């Protein structure tokens, strides 16, 4: 399920005010929210690592934000499923609330001007190509 940023039911958070994005001006950010118990999240990690590797030179930054309240659960997950991208922690779900995370995982594609251009709930292998196409398009702008 992909929700466009123009959806009237979704307010865009002020990305420029998020400390997480400090010094990332001009980058395209794939902001992903995940948790240790979420199986589709586990399946999404290799794909996100691949995206970071292939599109990093063009300015893509993948940031995966963990929402586990118990950090040990997240660390155990990462031992089993390493992340080849930046991982941050939001155990109080402050950022998740600001972005109105509606499912797990959920990702937000933020363009070089700090605008949320795409929201995607869940992870399906069959949707990878379409999602990658959108990322590539935003990177070219």
């Amino acid at each position, binding site marked *: *399920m992909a929700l466009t940023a123009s959806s009237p039911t979704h307010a865009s958070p002020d990305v420029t005010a998020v400390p997480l994005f400090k010094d990332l001006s001009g980058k395209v950010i794939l902001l992903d*929210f995940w948790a240790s*118990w979420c199986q589709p999240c586990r399946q999404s990690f290799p794909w996100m690592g691949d995206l970071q590797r292939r599109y990093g030179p063009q300015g893509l930054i993948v940031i995966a934000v963990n*929402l586990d309240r118990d950090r040990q659960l997240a660390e155990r997950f990462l031992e089993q499923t390493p992340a080849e991208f930046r991982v941050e922690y939001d155990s109080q779900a402050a950022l998740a609330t600001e972005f109105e995370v*509606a*499912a797990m995982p959920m990702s937000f594609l933020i363009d070089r001007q700090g605008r949320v251009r795409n929201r995607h709930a*869940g*992870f399906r292998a069959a949707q990878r190509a379409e999602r990658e196409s959108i990322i590539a398009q935003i990177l070219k702008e």
Partner: protein
Amino acid sequence: MLVMAAALLAGGCTTVKPWERDLHARPDMQPSTLDGAIDDHIYFSKEASSGGRGFGGGGCGCN
């Protein structure tokens, strides 16, 4: 899932955030009376439905 739905019905409708998986630890998820919850549990089991009228979306994503 059905037990959770029954607990929700017994305790009233509660909005559950998608990232709150450890639901059983929440005080408002504990059944205060079992009769109605058990009845609903049986109903939902027989109906083979997902139950949980007050279930506020969330859970894991699409796969």
